[in-house]
């Protein structure tokens, strides 16, 4: 067996994460495939250059949250912008994003409706294909396999690359679901031909398929797939662990068929310090034992028996070692080791009881939450740190369960929702206070505004405007050129008038006659000048009149707006207050629902953990029985030997 990197604390964390991932993938819905499709909600995850650009900034705002993994903020912001109709240029993409995010939160029905609507309305082919893919995904998750395959068949080849891979994987899963393993292999082979045979998801899919085939009785074909995974060269710890897992499954499958040498070859490929090392050591021992080479079997079993007893393989080794000694006729040694094993099993049983009590006291979930905080609700999240509990080693297999992880995520989501509702409860108080301030400010300003309103009588200005308009009309009609006289002309006219009075009193004096003539010419010059300027002055006057009209009408509009505001503002504030109270009632109604579900979910998660530990206890009880039975057998043999006069166990 090859040496691997010692896990250590960091390694344990990683190991747990990997375990969770592998087990998740081993179940029906592979975690990696989910990661792929959520990434692909928006096709530009690996953005081409130059970027296509967002045509509505608010759509980009939702993407800003989405790309940070803040899916709750992404979906709520998206829905707010949809409400205000701020994403017209990305209406379809926004719906795909919303549907995908709903789906990620398990809101299958609503997500399904969104995608179905997109298809019905005849969205463009890339959007339609994505909608069909998600519909297929939803139907598969709901167990509607035939309908899921039908949806997959509607995809026309416009999927982004990431989704294309997920589509093939979904196709393989569907084939597996109806027992068509050959079909699943064909789908995965097609994926291999796309140049990504070693991608994480493809390897996980091959592993799952191999295990499924062995379980379905197609051992040779399943083993061939597992062998492929078990030999794949890879640098990543995650895939090395998957490779170990495949080799362990392969080794035990060979053991089951009494192919000890094949088992040994597969188990040899498992790293000595990986998370699957214990199982491999156990199997390695059995492979040797089945070839009657018990001395060779004792080497891995003795090493294994000294490891952490919270692993089932270690407990099993504690029985296997004395079994081997007994087979080698070293009965005294075997007897002592069986008794040690019984003691170790009883200690382990007591530790399991302590762990169960700690879980039921809520310490497991509290510890997990404390050690694995997260900003938002979301399923793309893994338990990275074990909580501090007396015997946290028991929890590794518990936490690695897909079902536990999913249930715990739901629990964590509910705590997030409870916090979210509490924050809104506080924010609504702030909004209420703000509304009260506005009411107060309105009430305080209203008298001053009304006073000012009273002091400005627009009717007077209307009257003046009307008089001016009438005068202008008369001037134009009568061509009253003198009406537009400026100050200088008016002064000149006054002087002409006064000179004219003098001249008229002067009689027939010849000098007066000359003055009269000069006066006539001056008056004529003035009239001529005014006539010349009349058209321009009339235009200016009309323009001034239009400005006056506009200003007056703006003043009227402002007066009307003010009056409307006075009339409407209380109603508007009342409407806001009513909305605040209606929403506060919804917050209030949801809080106990969330609290009740969180308590129920906590109980469910804890019971999942307890059930796993109970299984460990059952296994221990079986081991204790086996050990006691073996001890009894050894004593029986000794009694028989004494009866025969042979030696007692040594």
């Amino acid at each position, binding site marked *: 067996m090859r040496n691997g990197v010692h896990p250590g604390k960091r390694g344990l964390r990683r190991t747990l994460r990997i375990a969770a991932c592998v087990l998740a993938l081993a*179940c029906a819905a592979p975690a990696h495939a989910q990661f792929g499709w959520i990434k692909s909600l928006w096709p*530009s995850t690996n953005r081409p250059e130059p970027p296509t650009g967002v045509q509505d900034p608010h759509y*980009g705002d939702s993407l800003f949250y989405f790309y*940070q993994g803040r899916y709750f903020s992404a979906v*709520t912001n998206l829905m*707010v912008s949809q409400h205000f109709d701020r994403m017209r240029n990305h209406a379809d993409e926004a719906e795909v994003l919303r549907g995908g995010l709903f789906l990620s*939160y398990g809101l299958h029905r609503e997500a399904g409706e969104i995608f179905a609507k997109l298809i019905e309305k005849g969205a463009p082919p890339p959007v339609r294909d994505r909608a069909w893919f998600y519909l297929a995904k939803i139907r598969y998750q709901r167990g509607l396999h035939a309908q899921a395959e039908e949806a997959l068949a509607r995809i026309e080849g416009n999927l982004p690359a990431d989704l294309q891979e997920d589509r093939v994987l979904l196709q393989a899963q569907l084939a597996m679901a109806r027992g068509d393993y050959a079909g699943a292999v064909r789908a995965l082979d097609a994926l291999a031909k796309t140049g990504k045979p070693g991608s994480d998801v493809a390897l996980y899919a091959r592993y799952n398929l191999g*295990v499924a085939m062995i379980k379905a009785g197609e051992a040779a074909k399943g083993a061939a797939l597992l062998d492929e995974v078990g030999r794949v060269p890879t640098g990543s710890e995650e895939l090395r662990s998957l490779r170990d897992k495949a080799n362990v499954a392969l080794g*035990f499958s060979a053991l089951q068929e009494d192919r000890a040498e094949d088992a040994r070859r597969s188990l040899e490929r498992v790293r000595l310090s990986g998370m699957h090392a214990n199982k491999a050591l156990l199997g390695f021992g059995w492979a040797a034992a*089945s070839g009657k080479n018990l001395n060779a079997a004792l080497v891995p079993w003795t090493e294994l028996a000294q490891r952490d007893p919270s692993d089932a393989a270690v407990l099993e080794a504690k029985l296997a070692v004395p079994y081997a000694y007994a087979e080698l006729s070293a009965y005294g040694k075997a007897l002592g080791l069986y008794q040690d094993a019984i003691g170790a099993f009883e200690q382990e049983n007591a530790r399991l009881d302590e762990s169960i009590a700690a879980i039921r006291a809520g310490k497991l979930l509290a510890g997990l939450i404390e050690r694995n905080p997260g900003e938002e609700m979301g399923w793309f999240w893994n338990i990275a740190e074990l909580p501090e509990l007396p015997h946290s080693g028991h929890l590794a297999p518990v936490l690695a369960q897909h079902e536990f992880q999913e249930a715990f995520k739901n629990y964590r989501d509910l705590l997030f929702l409870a916090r979210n509702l509490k924050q809104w409860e506080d924010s609504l108080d702030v909004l209420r206070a703000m509304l009260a301030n506005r009411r107060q400010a309105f009430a305080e300003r209203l008298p001053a505004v009304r006073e000012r309103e009273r002091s400005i009588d627009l009717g007077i200005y209307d009257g003046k405007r009307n008089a001016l308009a009438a005068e202008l009309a008369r001037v134009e009609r009568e061509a009253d050129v003198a009406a537009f006289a400026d100050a200088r002309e008016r002064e000149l006219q006054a002087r002409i008038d006064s000179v004219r009075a003098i001249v008229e009193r002067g009689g027939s004096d010849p000098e007066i006659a000359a003055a009269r003539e000069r006066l006539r010419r001056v008056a004529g010059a003035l009239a001529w000048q005014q006539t010349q300027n009349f058209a321009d002055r009339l235009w200016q006057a009309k323009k001034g009149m239009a400005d006056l009209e506009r200003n007056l009408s703006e003043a009227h509009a402002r007066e009307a707006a003010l009056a409307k505001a006075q009339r409407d503002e209380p109603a508007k504030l009342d409407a806001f207050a009513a909305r605040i109270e209606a929403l506060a009632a919804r917050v209030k109604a949801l809080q106990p629902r969330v609290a009740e579900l969180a308590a129920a979910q906590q109980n469910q998660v804890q019971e999942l953990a307890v059930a796993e530990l109970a299984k460990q206890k059952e296994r221990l009880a079986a081991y204790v029985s086996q050990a006691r039975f073996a001890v009894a057998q050894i004593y029986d043999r000794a009694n028989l030997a004494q009866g025969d006069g042979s030696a007692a166990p040594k």
Partner: protein
Amino acid sequence: MLTRCCLVLAVALCAAASPVAAQTTTANLDDRIQDVKGDVIRLNRDLMVLEEELLFPANTQVAIFVSMDVGRLFSLDSVKIKLDDKDVANYLYTPAEVQALHRGGVQRIYVGNLKAGSHELVAFFTGKGPHDRDYKRGATIRFDKSTEPKYIELQIKDSTGKLQPEFEVKVWQ
């Protein structure tokens, strides 16, 4: 021994690949949890709509966005925004946020209220420019605010010709 071997094998394979059938009670609880999640998401939308209408009515609303078009020539650290000579935003970016901008996200960095009329916006971008040098640049724009909401996008672009980052302001209408 064979029995034991089978037991171990069962443990190994079971732990590896057994899909656990969901129990009815679990399914009911799951359904109720999904329902409550949907209800809270919709409630959040309605609350956010109310908050926006109350705090930033459409006739006075102004929103400022930051986006990055390629952005290879500029590694963004922070953005500071002044509106009519008043500091309204001073934002320090996390690597995850910068990454989100690179991928096409657009950050709404500020939302506030402005009266109708002419206003001035000044934005300062700090970060690392070409050759990893400290880089600080400003962009200014005068804009008219009507009684419609105003959306202004500050765009960080790469000028491949000049091999320099460019900062542009786009006014959406």
